[in-house]
C-alpha cells in the first residue's frame, strides 16, 4: 500500500478533524506510515473544513491530497468540491442524512449512509463520523476493526474508555454499509 489517501470533509464542528486523526491512529497501530493534514475555509467558525489522511507502507510523499482513494463528505459543498478529486475506482462515502444529492461520476463506488441518524440513535452525534470510519475500514481495508479498537484504547484517556463500546457499535453499523 503506497500513499493510500482519504479526504474527510464537512462543516466545522462536525468532528472531521478528529475522525481523520482516529483513522491515522488505527493505521499507525498496524505499523503503517501515516500522515494527517488539516485545511480550513476562510470562515472563523462554521464554514467548511477538511483533512487529508495518507496511509502507506513506505515514507509518505505529500500529505496534501490531489487524488484521493476515498472521500468522506458530511455536507453538500464538500461533496460538490471533492467528488472530482477521487481517483477512478475510488470510493465516495456520504452522510445521506445531510447530503441529498447523488454523484455525477460513475467510475467510483458511491456509499451513502445515514450516519447522523445512526449517531442520534446511539445518542451521541460524535458517532456519525465514527460510523463512517467503520464504512471506510470495511470498504478499503486501510485499517482493521481490531486496530481501530486497539488504538482507541491507547489514545483515549482511561476515564473515557466507557465510550469504547458505543464507538465500536457505531463503527460496525457503518461497516455494514460497505458489505
Amino acid at each position, binding site marked *: 500500500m503506497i500513499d493510500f489517501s482519504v479526504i474527510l470533509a464537512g462543516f466545522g464542528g462536525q468532528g472531521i478533524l478528529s475522525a481523520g486523526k482516529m483513522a491515522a491512529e488505527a493505521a499507525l497501530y498496524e505499523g503503517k506510515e501515516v500522515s494527517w493534514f488539516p485545511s480550513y475555509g*476562510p*470562515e*472563523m*467558525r*462554521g*464554514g467548511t473544513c477538511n483533512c487529508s489522511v495518507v496511509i502507506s507502507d513506505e515514507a509518505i510523499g505529500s500529505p496534501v491530497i490531489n487524488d484521493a482513494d476515498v472521500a468522506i463528505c458530511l455536507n453538500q459543498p464538500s461533496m460538490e468540491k471533492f467528488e472530482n478529486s477521487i481517483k477512478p475506482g475510488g470510493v465516495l462515502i456520504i452522510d445521506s442524512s445531510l447530503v441529498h444529492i447523488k454523484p455525477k461520476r460513475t467510475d467510483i463506488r458511491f456509499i451513502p449512509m445515514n450516519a447522523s441518524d445512526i449517531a442520534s440513535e446511539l445518542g451521541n452525534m460524535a458517532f456519525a463520523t465514527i460510523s463512517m470510519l467503520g464504512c471506510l475500514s470495511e470498504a478499503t481495508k486501510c485499517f482493521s476493526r481490531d486496530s481501530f479498537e486497539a488504538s482507541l484504547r491507547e489514545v483515549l484517556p482511561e476515564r473515557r474508555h466507557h465510550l469504547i463500546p458505543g464507538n465500536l457499535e457505531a463503527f460496525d453499523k457503518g461497516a455494514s454499509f460497505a458489505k
Partner: protein
Amino acid sequence: MAIVFERTTGLTDKPFHYCPGCTHGIIHRIIAETMVEMGILDSTVGVASVGCTYNSYEYFSCDMVQAAHGRAPAVATGIKRSLKDKLVFTYQGDGDLASIGTAEIIHAAARGEKICTFFVNNAVYGMTSGQMAPTTLLGQVTTTSPFGRDASYQGYPINVSELIAQLTGAVYVERVSLTDYKNVMKAKAAVKKAFEVQMSGKGFAFVEFLSTCPTNWGKEPCESLEWLKEKMIPQYPLGCFKGADLDLEVKS
C-alpha cells in the same frame, strides 16, 4: 409600511465570514451606517488591520487599505498626511492595537494625528485561535494562558482608553459596548462624534468597543454578551474619558 431597518449601502453585498454572534459585525455596520448618514462614504479611506477583520476591506464600501499587523495608525498617518481633506479611520483589534501596535497607536495619538481609530477589544486574539491579549482579564483562560492569566507571570490587563486619554494629542476618547439596543446606539453616536472630531481638525479620536469572541471564549453568543457585562465592564468601565464637552463646529 416603510423600511425602518435594512442593510446599509456603507457595506458591500458580501456576507461576513465572522463566527455566529461575533459583534465585529455590529461594529462594522454602525461605522458603515454612520459614513452613509454623514455623507462621507465617498471621501473616507478606511484602514483594515490584521485580525479576524483582516479583510474588512471587502465589507466596507469606502476605499480601503489593508495594513500590516499593528501598523494601521502609521498607514493611516501616511494616507491622511497626503490626503488632508479626506477622512481616515483605522479598525483594529486588541492584539493589533494594544500589543504589536502599541508604539503606533500611542504616537498617532501623541501627534494628534487627525484620524479616527475604532478599537475592538474582545480580550483575546480571535484570528489566531484565542491567545492571550494585553486586554485579557486576570484569570481568563486562553490558549497561551491555559491556567488562567496570572499577573505574576503574565502581567496585568491594559486599559487602553485610559492610557490614550493621557496623551494631549488625543482629544476624544470613549469606551462603548454593544450589549443591547441602547448601547449599540451609544456606540453609533461615538462613531459619529469621532468622525466629527476629525472633521473639526482638533486631533485624534479614539473609540474602544467592548466586543465578544464567542468562539475563543468558548461561550454561546448570548452568554458571551452576559460575560462581557459581568466580567469585562468592571475592568473596562464604559464612558467618555476625554472630549465629552468638545466644541465641534465643523470646519468646512
